[in-house]
């Protein structure tokens, strides 16, 4: 126990004191947090659907939880069920084997059913394209609000995409801010 406390004390809080290269990031994440609260008036819950990705995008989504990005500290949380989610985050060139599961997940999510397609594959099938096994981009299967390109997009780009999608909701008045 003592070792754990020592380790925590020694580490400090990387989110508060990021390395120099990340100063811009800290400003960015503070702004994201403020905006989220302003727009949604609450935390944002996201359900991830890997619809056939190579797992590269998932590595970056996992990185969002590390102390540098501290996504949960911003009030953004990945949840276990689409029924609890404000937003679906979808990766991969949707494989035909995942097509039905993706549609059903979309149906299960409550309004506003925000959809963020992440990665070059989510945009248009990426290097895998469209084939006997893939449908191509996410928009071929369910309506998409915003695409974050990249292979994979770095965590901060994904965060930016999440915020942009939420902002777009405000401008389209799909959700009334509280």
């Amino acid at each position, binding site marked *: 126990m003592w070792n754990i406390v020592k380790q925590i004390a020694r580490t400090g809080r990387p989110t508060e004191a990021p390395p120099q290269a990340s100063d811009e990031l800290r400003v960015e994440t503070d702004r994201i947090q403020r905006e989220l609260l302003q727009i949604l008036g609450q935390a944002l819950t996201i359900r991830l659907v890997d619809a056939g990705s190579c797992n590269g995008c998932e590595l970056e989504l996992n990185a969002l939880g590390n102390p540098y990005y501290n996504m949960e500290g911003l009030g953004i949380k990945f949840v276990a069920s689409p029924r609890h989610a404000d937003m679906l985050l979808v990766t991969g060139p949707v494989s035909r084997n995942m097509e039905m*599961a993706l549609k059903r997940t979309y149906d299960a999510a409550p309004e506003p059913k925000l959809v963020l397609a992440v990665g070059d594959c989510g945009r248009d099938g990426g290097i895998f394209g469209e084939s006997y096994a893939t449908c191509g981009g996410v928009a071929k299967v369910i309506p998409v609000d915003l695409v974050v390109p990249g292979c994979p997009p770095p965590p901060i780009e994904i965060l930016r995409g999440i915020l942009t999608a939420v902002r777009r909701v405000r401008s389209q008045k799909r959700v009334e801010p509280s």
Partner: protein
Amino acid sequence: MLPGISTELTRLPGPLPVWHGVIDAADWQAAAIGVAQQGGRLVALWGSGGGDSRTPAVHAAYATSTGLTWLELPQAGSDASYPDLSGLFPFANRMQRAVRDLSGLNAAGAADTRPWLNHGAWPRNYFPLGDAASAQSMPDRGEVVDYSFVRVEGDGVHEIAVGPVHAGIIEPGHFRFSVVGEKVLRLEQRLGYTHKGTEKRFTELAPHQAYRLAGRVAGDSTVAFAWAYCMALESAAGCDIPVRGRSLRALLLERERVANHLGDLGALGNDAGLGVALAQFSRLKEDWLRLSRQLFGHRFMMDCVAPGGVECDLDGAGIAALIAQCDSIQREVQQLRAMFDEHAGLQDRFSGAGRVSPELAIRLGLTGLAARASGQSQDLRCEHAWAPYDSLAVNVATQSAGDVAARVAVRFDETLESLRLVRSIAADLPAGAVRVKFLLKRESARGAGWVEGWRGEVLVTLEVDGQEGEPRIRRCHCHDPSWQNWPVLEHAIIGNIVPDFPLINKSFNLDYSGHDL
């Protein structure tokens, strides 16, 4: 060089000993028996289509003490089949079903003929890797049919169905647990959800460009697959790469190993209830990825390994930064290891969970990192140490308990060993070019790339055709060690409780995308 077969084998050019031969059905059977008796392993099984005056064929790759032997058994005629290997190598079952789904070739006498990758999204009589004529690019949808899971019946037995959309940030797959109370009686996996036609896609890309696709077979093993693909292409062209490029490839591969171990060690602590482990290890991993971005241009080093060498280089400052980071990460990992070792609650969850005994590991063909935690000392970096590993004397990390604790210990040992390797390679980087240009010969050729990725041995076999016009890929098969280890996970969970599944699963951390292709 295999016992019991009469066919002459040809050595393929390349840094590791790889042999190829076209054999008949009798030799197919004899080779399998010989390898099994000798304690060798079946690495991969795949099919290739006919057309253009070529005969369809089924292929097997075996690893023995002399190297890798790639055997090709032609399958002429519509009623052709090949002898079933699942009796000798149980994990061959799923590979044979995948061969049926993709190439239309059948294993004679196989008991389990359920489709594996074809979930009904394309017709059963459409074979994407079969004859060119039958493999038009866009078939109609097939019919979705129920998959017949093996049912466990008895008083109080019920099923828990999980997936394909999982609760966490992980890849899709379906797990069917048969449980009584909390105890798992049986787990049956159904995979293939991320099948995206990768191997057919290879045939549509230029050989010198397809390394980018190989780097996206499995995102967490991008260096391993890109290296294996490039090794196969260079083998087919009979081309050597510069020594500096060779060393940099190994440096990238070891960095990939460290990145994955750091991530998984944190997740393992977290799955056993120690949240601070996740915070600490994910911080170290982020530091690690950021330096990769800074030095190599990509956090996961995608597209850094390219045909003829690497697409990145290190200067003096870069080398100094690498070495300094290895030193600091080593210190932190050792502190965190002490924290793990002293935490009674954590050790209680790790010890005895998901145990695969050494005997079971041998019988089921467990491979890679998980095999090393079950007493098997296999590691290509030592078994067939190719340059630069031949001068690095890699220490293989092994444990014999075969439980989660053993797999955690192997990951710690391998992390520290890879830090040593990164330092050693960086400090002793040969001078010269990092990449050489080469052309494929204007003839048909084949090559193989065999690399010890962080999860285990990765194999890429490549057949190129250069006779008419631009060279093209006729067949490229990518094999991930998860094919061997997924079925073993079904055994590892037996008798454990359902809440321990995420922990046990994470300790293997098997691949979906690299398996489903």
